[in-house]
């Protein structure tokens, strides 16, 4: 059993290292959007679309999180607006865990 666990560990470790070696560099945008979607109308990825462009002549944001959600902190606009449904899910995970603990440890009021 210990040998089996060791083999599993080695395989998983290899996966981790190999994928860390193979994956695109940290912080770089994916360069292959054009090859990935040759028939797409615009070549704008998820990140670029969320961050958007600031038009210096009109003084307004164009097609970005700030224009769409009105929040200065782009991270919050992703967490609560673009992926708000996921945040609802995460909050529910917390709620579920706590309800479970209450079921296990909670005392009925006498």
């Amino acid at each position, binding site marked *: 059993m210990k040998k089996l666990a060791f083999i599993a560990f080695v395989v998983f470790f290899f996966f981790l290292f190999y994928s860390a070696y193979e994956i695109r560099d940290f912080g770089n945008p994916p360069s292959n959007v054009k090859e990935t979607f040759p028939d797409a109308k615009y070549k704008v990825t998820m990140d670029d679309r969320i961050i958007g462009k600031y038009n210096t002549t009109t003084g307004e944001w164009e097609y970005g999180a700030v224009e769409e*959600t009105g*929040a*200065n*902190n782009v991270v919050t606009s992703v967490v609560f*607006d673009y992926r708000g449904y996921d945040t*609802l899910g995460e909050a529910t995970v917390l*709620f579920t865990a706590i309800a479970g603990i*209450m079921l296990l440890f909670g005392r009925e009021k006498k």
Partner: protein
Amino acid sequence: MKNEEMNEGKMTVIVQTIAALLFPLALIFSFYVIMHGHLTPGGGFQGGAIGASAVVLLIVAYGVKHVEEKMSEGGFSVFESLGGLIFVVVAIFGLFLATSFLANFLVNEPIFGKIPGWGESPLNSGGILPILNIAVGMKVIGGLSAVVLILALISREGEEK
């Protein structure tokens, strides 16, 4: 006298005084992080965690029984459920008042709907984001405090036996 106090899970007077001073500060900081979620780094979850750690501070300094007299785990649990309800109700409002579930229906409306320009950051921007932040904050403060409180109570009962 001193030993008895230690047995009840209380700390010394120094710790208690510092905790009493720090508790409101931590709560205010938590509230600040939650309210400014759409402007500065942070948000409901982070602020809620800070708020819950303030409650943990009280539990450590004054003992579980003292905290439970002020607010029981049932109270925290209700607080948490309320947070969840606000989140879902706001999301469903998006469905009925605007276009879709979780739609940001307050953007470009008078109260919260301001869209900030370059470099400015008014508190009343962000549409429904501040409301959702507050909902998640309530949920996290209530939930995490309830867990710590309930575990501490169980742990104390085990010691008394």
